[in-house]
C-alpha cells in the first residue's frame, strides 16, 4: 500500500519528466472534481414530507449502507409535494416510496 505522499511524489515526478509541471493546477482541479463526484457517489439524498428524527435517520443510514454496500452520508430535504413516504436518491439510483408516486400509479392505471 503506497502512502498518499508517495503517490503525490510520483505524480510530480511524472510531470517533471514530461516537462508538464505547468499543468499541475489543471491536474489538481481534475482530481478535486473527481473527489466531488466520489463524494456525490457516497451521499444519499432523502426527501420527506416531514422532518426525520435522529432514530429514524440512524436506521435509514444503516439500511441504505447495507443495501448499497458502502458507507453513505445522508442529505435531507423537506418536500411537502410528495405528501408522505420517502424519496431516496443515491447516484443515479432512485427509490421512490412516496405517496405522490402511488397516486400517480393509480392515475396511470385508471387512464389505461
Amino acid at each position: 500500500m503506497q502512502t498518499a505522499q508517495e503517490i503525490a511524489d510520483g505524480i510530480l515526478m511524472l510531470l517533471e519528466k514530461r516537462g508538464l509541471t505547468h499543468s499541475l493546477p489543471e491536474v489538481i482541479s481534475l482530481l478535486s472534481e473527481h473527489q466531488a463526484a466520489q463524494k456525490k457517489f457516497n451521499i444519499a439524498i432523502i426527501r420527506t414530507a416531514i422532518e426525520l428524527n435522529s432514530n429514524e435517520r440512524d436506521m435509514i443510514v444503516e439500511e441504505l449502507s447495507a443495501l448499497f454496500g458502502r458507507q453513505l452520508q445522508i442529505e435531507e430535504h423537506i418536500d411537502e409535494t410528495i405528501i408522505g413516504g420517502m424519496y431516496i436518491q443515491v447516484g443515479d439510483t432512485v427509490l421512490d416510496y412516496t405517496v405522490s408516486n402511488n397516486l400517480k400509479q393509480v392515475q396511470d392505471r385508471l387512464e389505461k
Partner: protein
Amino acid sequence: MASFIEELEQHLNGYKPTGVLKHVGSILEVGDGIVTVTGLDNAKMAEVLRFSNGSYGLVLNLNRETIGAVVLGELEGIESGQQVEATGQLLEVPAGEAMLGRIVNALGQPLDGKGPIKHEKMMSVEKMAAGVITRKAVEVPLQTGVKAIDALIPIGRGQRELIIGDRQTGKSTIAIQTIMNQKETEMVCIYVAIGQKASFVAQTVALLEKEGALANTIIVVADAASAAALQYLAPYSGTAMAEYFLEKGRDSLIVYDDLSKHAWAYRQMSLLLRRPSGREAYPGDVFYLHSRLLERACRLNEKYGGGSITALPIIETQAGDVSAYIPTNVISITDGQIYLEADLFYSGIRPAVNVGTSVSRVGSAAQTKAMKKVAGKMKIELSQYRELAAFAQFASDLDEMTKKTIERGGRLTEILKQGPTELLSLGEQVLQVWAVSEGYANSLAKTDVQAWSVKLLEYVKTSSPEIIEKLNKEKVLSDEVLAMMKKAVEEFNNTYVK
C-alpha cells in the same frame, strides 16, 4: 355515483401501492433528435429511456461520462436539465395475428385509425439471427406471379433476394406484386416503407386493399417525415413482427423498401452522434447494419418449427451505379439480385428485369420441376439472343441461323412482359413460356406475341382448364400434360386471327 365508485374499485382491484426502484439521469444537451444524458452509469447499449414528456429514447452511444440517445417520437417538451429514466428494457414491438391488415409505425403503434391493436406478444427489435443448427436449405419456392422472375430468377422461401435499380424502374412494383400474389396462400407479408413519400404508401395500401391482399399483410411505415431514428428502426421492427410468425412455424415475406434510405437515416444519426465517418460519410458499421438485418431471414428445419422469413430488400441506385458503397454491400449480403434497368423500362420491357445480370444463388433449388423444364431452354436461348442482339440491326446480312435465334429471343423477351397488377399462377406461366419456346408463336410478328399469349391463356382456361389446374397441383410437366398442352395450343393456333 355509487356505480361510479364501484367501477373505480373494479379498475383498481388488485392494485397495491408499491415503491419503485429506478435509475435516473439528467439531460445535458438536446438537438436534432439526439439527447446527451449524464448519470445513468449502468445504462446498457440499446436500452430504452423514458423522457418526462412521455417519449421514449434509445441508447446508442456509451461514452465515459455521458450517454447518447436518439428520441423515438415527440421531441417537443424535452429540455436540458430534465430527468431521464432508464427502463432497463431493450426495445420491443407488439406482434401477433391482430397486426395483420394493419398499418403501424416503427414502434408498432397503429397509424390507420382502426383503434388499438390487441397484440399477443412483445418481440425484441434487435435479435440474433437463427443459428446454423436451426437452419435448413432453401427448397420451397416462393411464387411471385411475375413470369420473368419465377422462370429465370426463382426465389425460394427463406431466401434474401435484392431488388436493385434506378428510380422509377419498377422496384416497388415487383415487391408489391409478390405480396399480392400471396393473398391465397398462408404466407404472412410485411411491407416496411422506409423514408418513402406518405402519398406512395397510401397508394400502395389502397392497391393492396383493392386486390384483397391487405388482410394478410402488415404495413410498417416510417415515411420521409418520420424521425431518422424511426426510419432506422422500422426494418428491425418489421423483422421482429415476422419472427413472431416464424416461431409459430409459418412462412413470411418481408419487403424493405428501401435500404438506401435506411442507410441515409443511419448516416444522419451517426453523424449527429459524432461517430467517425467513413466512405461516403457512412459510419464504420454500415455493413453490419444491413448484414445483421438480412441474416434474420431464414428457413428453419422441422425441429424448430419449419417456418421461414423471405426477405426482399430494395436498393435504389443513382444512374445505374451498382458499384456505389451501399449497393455493393447489400449485393454481397443477399443471395442474388433482380437488376432493373431504366433503358429496358423506357423501351417498353416491363418488368425491366435485366435477365443477364440478375441472379438467384439459391432459388433454382426451389424452382418447381415444371418450370425448370420449360425455363431451362429459355435461359440458354435468351443468353444466345443477348450475344447476337447487337447485330439485329444488320438483319439482312445475317445467316438464317442467327436470324432465327434473334427472332426467337425477341419473342421470348416479349412473353416476359407483364402488367403491374397482372399476376400469373405457375400453370399459366408454364403454358405461356412453353408455347413460345416450343415455337408456336413463330409465325407471328414480335409485336403480336403478347396479345397472342393473352388470348391463348383465355382459350385454354375455357376449353381445357384442367391443364392449368393439373400444373398448379402437380407442379411437374408430365407427358400427359405435355400432350394436352400441345393439343390445346395447336387447336388455338388454328382458330387464331389477329
